[in-house]
């Protein structure tokens, strides 16, 4: 920088200006978007533990942890996609279709299970690619594209199977053990899917917050034209995230089919909205630009524990949706209030 008279003024101004108060660690912690969901989760756990003696039992917790990773994996993929400013309504259908493809190929003795597994994931890659290509190249909103794909994938699963579930119990191979084998720690039954969920969460969390790709995801969701002007490959980033989301859904569906010993062409119906709800409850911005994997994990547990807890304390399971809806509305109100407070403070 060239020396100029304003430099002296600037130095003086620097001396005069008191350093801005940096918020304390506690304040920063409370200011985080994950803080609201964390409080909600803790409240939920406390309330259910008080009202139900069995809620915190080993049996119930291990039950809860059996199913949660499957929704959780879908939510992890969805978090990345929503951060980039898009979303995917076809995940529930892909959750149903992928295991149908895998088990049909295996049961009809077309190919060994391991190969069928990769073929099923390959289909998910194609579905994700088509979603992404339609959204980015043809500029059709992701709502419409993935709504169409939701029906195509579900229809395909029903057509292949004539609507009948595929049996999956015939195979106890190394592959199924790796995906969702169970083992005991004391009385505590743990499925391998929980470990995969943790691994995926760590990898995707790292990717989103620490990597260049993560920076591009947030930029694509925040201001895609500005990102594009900086040389960020917005379309490619989004297509890759559509693929990631579809693959995560397929993997979750396969996991589920092995765990419950059946691949039902209807399974996963309605999951897409629950998964999106988990993501936004956790603090990820539905319109993109900001995403949090930690928040999503909290969101996943908030909704899964709610489903489990209200049954445990004797509320009819049919009332579940009332609570979910109330949580979504409450969390959105909280996020918007925090947002406004944040802006008025600057």
């Amino acid at each position, binding site marked *: 920088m060239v020396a*100029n008279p304003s430099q002296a003024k600037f130095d003086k101004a*620097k001396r005069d200006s008191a350093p801005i108060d940096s918020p304390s660690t506690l304040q920063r912690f409370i200011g985080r978007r994950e803080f609201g969901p964390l409080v909600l989760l803790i409240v939920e756990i406390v309330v259910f533990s008080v009202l139900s003696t069995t809620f915190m039992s080993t049996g119930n917790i291990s039950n809860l942890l059996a199913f949660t990773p499957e929704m959780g994996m879908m939510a992890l993929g969805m978090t990345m996609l929503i951060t980039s400013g898009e979303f995917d309504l076809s995940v529930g259908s892909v959750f149903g279709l992928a295991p149908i493809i895998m088990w049909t190929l295996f049961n009809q003795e077309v190919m060994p299970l391991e190969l069928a597994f990769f073929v099923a994931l390959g289909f998910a890659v194609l579905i994700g690619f088509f979603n992404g290509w339609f959204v980015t190249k043809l500029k059709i909103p992701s709502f419409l594209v993935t709504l169409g794909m939701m029906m195509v994938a579900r229809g395909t699963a029903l057509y292949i199977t004539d609507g009948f579930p595929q049996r999956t119990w015939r195979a106890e191979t190394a592959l199924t053990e790796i995906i969702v084998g169970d083992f005991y720690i004391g009385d505590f039954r743990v499925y391998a899917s929980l470990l995969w969920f943790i691994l995926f969460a760590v990898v995707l969390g790292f990717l989103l917050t620490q990597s*260049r790709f993560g920076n591009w995801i*947030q930029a694509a969701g925040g201001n895609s034209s500005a990102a594009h002007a*900086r040389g*960020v490959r917005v379309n490619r980033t989004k297509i890759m995230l559509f693929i990631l989301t579809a693959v995560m859904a397929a993997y979750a569906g396969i996991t589920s089919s092995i765990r419950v010993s059946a691949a039902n062409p209807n399974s996963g119906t309605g999951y897409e909205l629950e998964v999106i709800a988990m993501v936004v409850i956790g603090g990820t*911005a539905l319109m993109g*630009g900001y995403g949090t994997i930690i928040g999503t994990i909290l969101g996943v547990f908030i909704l899964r524990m709610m489903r489990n807890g209200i049954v445990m304390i004797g509320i009819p399971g049919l009332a579940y949706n009332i609570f979910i809806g109330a949580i979504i509305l409450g969390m959105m109100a909280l996020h918007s209030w925090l947002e406004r407070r944040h802006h008025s403070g600057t």
Partner: protein
Amino acid sequence: MATELVRMENINKFFGRVQALENVNFTVYENEIVGLLGDNGAGKSTLIKILSGAVLQSSGKIYIHGKEVDIDNTTDAINHGIETIYQDSALVTQLSIARNLFLGREPLKGPSFLQWMDQDKMNVEASRLMREVGITKNIPPTTPISALSGGERQAVAIARAMFFDSDLIILDEPTNNLGVEETQGVLRFVRSARDSGHSCIFIAHNIHHVFEVVDRIVVLRRGEVVADDIDPKQTTVHEVEEVITGMRVM
């Protein structure tokens, strides 16, 4: 005459049947600030967008340092040393200052199969750059853009162009929505950018701002260049206004 930096030759641009630019010839030399003026719809933005890779010309050639180049997208332009600061601030408001400064060119560390952003380096550089453009407040580089004022945002965009040492910095309405002091800050930067060897194209509605800072004025009118060598020191604002509206030929 000084060395030629960028030359656009016989540029035509059609949007459907509308011709936005007609045989435009436009040259920027090294170490100069060119003011690009014209009424709304005169073709300033289109010309700039072609140069920055946001729009493709229908016909015509672009030379940089005398060599013909294709600018098919914004990455090409940036790689050729052309940096554009748009009026609708080219920043991602949700991201921090540091992340915006390095967007698209994030410094990486770690082994090649597993690389992550060198955020320490980004933050240190960002703080230094913000001081260089003259932000006196002590703003942490991790602050999101959404928490900054209009002038501070402009400063981030300008710091980015400076850091990446572009040969040509295009400023599209950089003084819009800025206070008097912040406007002076921007003009000061434009001058120091030239003094440190950059060239600038300066587009502004406020002709007085243009007069204060540029070496040469080019006027577009209805897609054609009607004057390309107006010396602001030997011309009045009023005369240039007449050229823009077509009441005077120079």
